[in-house]
């Protein structure tokens, strides 16, 4: 068995929790069972429903659990550990206060089926967060229901589907997507039952209006645009583009992944967007948590409001309510209201910053990106120019010819205690490295990182072999991803169900 062979691979200094298991240990003390419970179970549940074998779970004490997961925390690089210039992900520092606010017992202990009158505080938070996000987006119809950015995209495609259906325009199922888009864009469009067409970017890295014209037509449902795009460039003809889209009766959808670059300065609604999603885990102070939960609220024009998922959080005669009588609504995309801890953090952030504060967010985000670009340009090629919005994409082509690819540079950065930038995306830059410093890093960090990048380029030129070996300072070295995919071992093999 493949699984059992894998078991023989010597563990690192942090074995699996299942290897720490000793029969009879338990990490929690629970109340005693009442007398006669066995007879009670026998009389109330027919035996065919009862579990025959106990579930495969470790048997460990609380101290074992504490050490184990503390050690695993030590083996995880977070933004709290090091600079994380991961392009397109907006890894900014988020105030600890928001964590405290989100974990307040008055929010944690609410049940979704409580009467609305007993959760006015929670509903107020969601209502206000939605209202203010709508204000910053220039798109007033907001739903906090989607659980993630990609979920916001999918929900938006469903909103658009419902909207066109209500108009009898069921033929509109084509979604046009530039080649710089995140992979989630085409995947979300397909998931909603639409078809996708990719258009090539122009030489300047922006949308080619001629290519767009060729694809726009009576079957177009929407165009999905990320602005600024993933090259860190603002689509400066966006209003013209919006007009073209609207002229054929289609909608402009904005992927808000890069909202941090323009928040408080440009409102997508003002440049012609009809609908957008916002990644609150990027722009609005929710930590990424190793891959969620964040939230992907969507903001749309008023004419799209009837199609938004319910319940709608509303304010009527001074009372916050949850409205479920929404006949045109697409329905629901998850259970209950939304990812509410994310709403609390978003609310806190909005209250702390105010309007002027958001100008500073985007201002410093853009300044910091331009500063790093300036410091390393020349040594690294920046194909679309060093003037950028909140991120820029360099090409490590030169370094590749010297013998170290973007991947090797990324691994080299790890040994210098940085989380590497996003690599090999967007696809139209070869050996791409996408750098987004965010507004929360200080000048010392930016300069040190730039110096590290320059040092790395020097190593690539003189001893590229050294980078091929990296990382060497981590708990494991480069891993065999091919083996993992060819012979997948996705559960600890002691699990009886896997035999």
């Amino acid at each position: 068995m493949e699984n059992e062979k894998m078991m023989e691979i010597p563990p690192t200094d942090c074995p699996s929790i299942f290897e720490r298991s000793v029969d009879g240990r338990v990490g929690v003390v629970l109340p005693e069972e009442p007398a006669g419970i066995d007879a009670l179970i026998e009389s109330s549940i027919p035996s065919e429903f009862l579990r025959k074998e106990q579930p495969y779970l470790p048997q460990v004490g609380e101290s074992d659990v504490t050490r184990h997961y503390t050690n695993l925390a030590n083996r995880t690089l977070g933004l709290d550990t090091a600079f994380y210039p991961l392009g397109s992900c907006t890894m900014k520092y988020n105030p600890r206060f928001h964590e405290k606010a989100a974990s307040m017992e008055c929010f944690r202990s609410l049940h979704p089926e409580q009467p609305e009158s007993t959760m006015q505080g929670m509903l107020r938070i969601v209502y206000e967060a939605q209202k203010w996000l709508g204000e910053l987006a220039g798109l007033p119809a907001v739903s906090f229901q989607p659980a993630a950015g990609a979920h916001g995209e999918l929900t938006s495609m469903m909103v658009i589907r419902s909207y066109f259906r209500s108009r009898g325009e069921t033929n509109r199922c084509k979604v046009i997507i530039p080649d710089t888009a995140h992979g989630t864009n085409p995947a979300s469009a397909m998931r909603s039952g639409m078809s996708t067409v990719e258009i090539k970017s122009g030489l300047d890295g922006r949308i080619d209006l001629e290519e767009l014209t060729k694809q726009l037509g009576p079957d177009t449902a929407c165009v999905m645009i990320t602005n600024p795009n993933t090259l860190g460039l603002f689509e400066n003809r966006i209003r013209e583009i919006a007009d073209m889209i609207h002229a054929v009766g289609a909608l402009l959808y904005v992927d808000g992944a890069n909202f941090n670059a323009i928040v408080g300065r440009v409102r997508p609604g003002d440049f012609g967007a009809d609908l957008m999603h916002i990644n609150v885990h990027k722009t609005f102070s929710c930590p990424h948590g190793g891959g969620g939960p964040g939230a992907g609220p969507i903001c749309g024009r008023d004419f799209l409001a009837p199609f938004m998922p319910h319940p709608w959080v509303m304010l009527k005669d001074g009372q916050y309510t949850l409205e479920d009588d929404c006949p045109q609504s697409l329905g629901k995309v998850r259970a209950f209201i939304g990812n509410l801890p994310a709403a609390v953090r978003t609310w806190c952030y909005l209250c702390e910053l105010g309007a002027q504060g958001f100008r500073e967010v985007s201002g410093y985000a853009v300044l910091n990106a331009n500063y790093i670009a300036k410091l390393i340009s020349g040594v690294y090629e920046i194909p679309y120019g060093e003037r950028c919005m909140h991120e820029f994409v360099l090409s490590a082509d030169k370094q590749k010819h010297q013998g170290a690819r973007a991947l090797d540079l990324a691994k080299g950065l790890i040994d210098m205690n940085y989380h590497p930038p996003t690599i090999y995306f967007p696809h139209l830059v070869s050996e791409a490295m996408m750098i987004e410093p965010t507004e929360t890093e200080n000048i010392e960090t930016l300069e040190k990182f730039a110096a590290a990048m320059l040092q790395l380029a020097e190593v690539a030129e003189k001893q590229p072999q050294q980078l091929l070996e990296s990382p060497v300072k981590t708990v494991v070295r480069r891993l065999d991803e091919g083996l993992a995919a060819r012979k997948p071992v996705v559960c600890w093999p002691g699990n009886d169900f896997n035999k």
Partner: protein
Amino acid sequence: MLKKVGVTSVDELFTQQIPEDLLLSDVTKLQLPVAADEMTLQRELNAIALANDTDKISFLGGGIYDHFIPAAVDLLASRGEFVTAYTPYQPEVSQGILQVFFEYQTMVAGLLGMDVANASMYDVASGAGEAVLMAISALRGRNEIIVPESIHPDIRETIHAYTDNGQVQIVNIPVGADGIIDTALLEKSLGEKTACVLIQHPNYLGCLEQVQMISDMTHKAGALLVAVVDPVSLGLLEAPGVWGADIAVADGQGIGLPMYAGGETVGLFACKQSLMRKMPGRIIGMTKDVNGKRGYVLTLQTREQHIRREKATSNICSNHALNALKVTIHLSLMGARGLTRVARLCLANMARLKAALPKEAIVYNAPCFKEIVVRTKRPVTHVLEEMLAEGYYAGIDLKKRLGSSDYDNCLLMCVTEKRTNEEIDTFAQKLRPMLVGGEM
């Protein structure tokens, strides 16, 4: 910095790149709050807290449950490295969180009795939506899904939204008089177009479904069985993998996460080995590094959107990582014995509550676990108001929640291990006169 960058002001970076008519000329015109300091904001939050009532004794369930969470869960999960990490695309610096997901997958698969699990979904409803789409894609040519009335209304609506693309047919099966799926009707509805049958067990009405019979029928028709289960119940009830589920989903809220007015939670998602490559979401695999040392990586990524774009098995990008971590820590602390104890305590409390209620008020005969439907004399809204005044959240008004007069005067109640004997007894005593068969 400005000088080095070649501008005289930060604003110039924007005017250089963005047409002037798109730039907000006066940000102060935006209807946003006035910036507040932390101290002021904490005061404001304390005031908001008072407008949330969490002091009542709760018998609410219906998908979100008031289960015990050991203190260690949140304390350990709040480590900054976990909270502030990104998706582990760089495995060498993410071994900790990757190992967490691997252990999570193992525990979820073990709990559900399935071969493999992914690294989590957003919640049970979106997970169920993904599961039916996965079943349809696994069985090409079959486009009908059978969704009985006995599942959670939010799951039903989510499945509807996920499959409302003009190509999928949803077949409804009503609930029988005993609170469970009418299996004779189900058998008639199954056919060569059926891609999957979705069942919830225990179902939304608290009743245990005839899972083995349903599973056999489903497979005989060549369709897949998608099971929605309550992970806490699995301390006592047979795992869906054993009774034949091909895909099993569950909400992880009850095993380590606060109720939080319904979310955020985490979706458990597991399937048979043969369906693994159709699974949505992140999957973590074990492998070796260049020195032969054990390590973990994101694997089977060729299913995913960042590689496959429009051809991906799903658009899912993130999981609900931090909540998956909490579930992992919770299950580690509990172990099989703790989880079983919790399930047995729930059942004991339910038996205590049931015994204190008039028999005539119990709406369904089918066995139940921790939830039960009772019939009230007057409309449930009145009962709920009166019980609220007595200090209780007594349950869910099914007529309102399910939007159907079939459930007139039907109240769905839940009792977990957290309710004390005294709470249960006093509650039952106060509720009894309002129930059918209860003396005034």
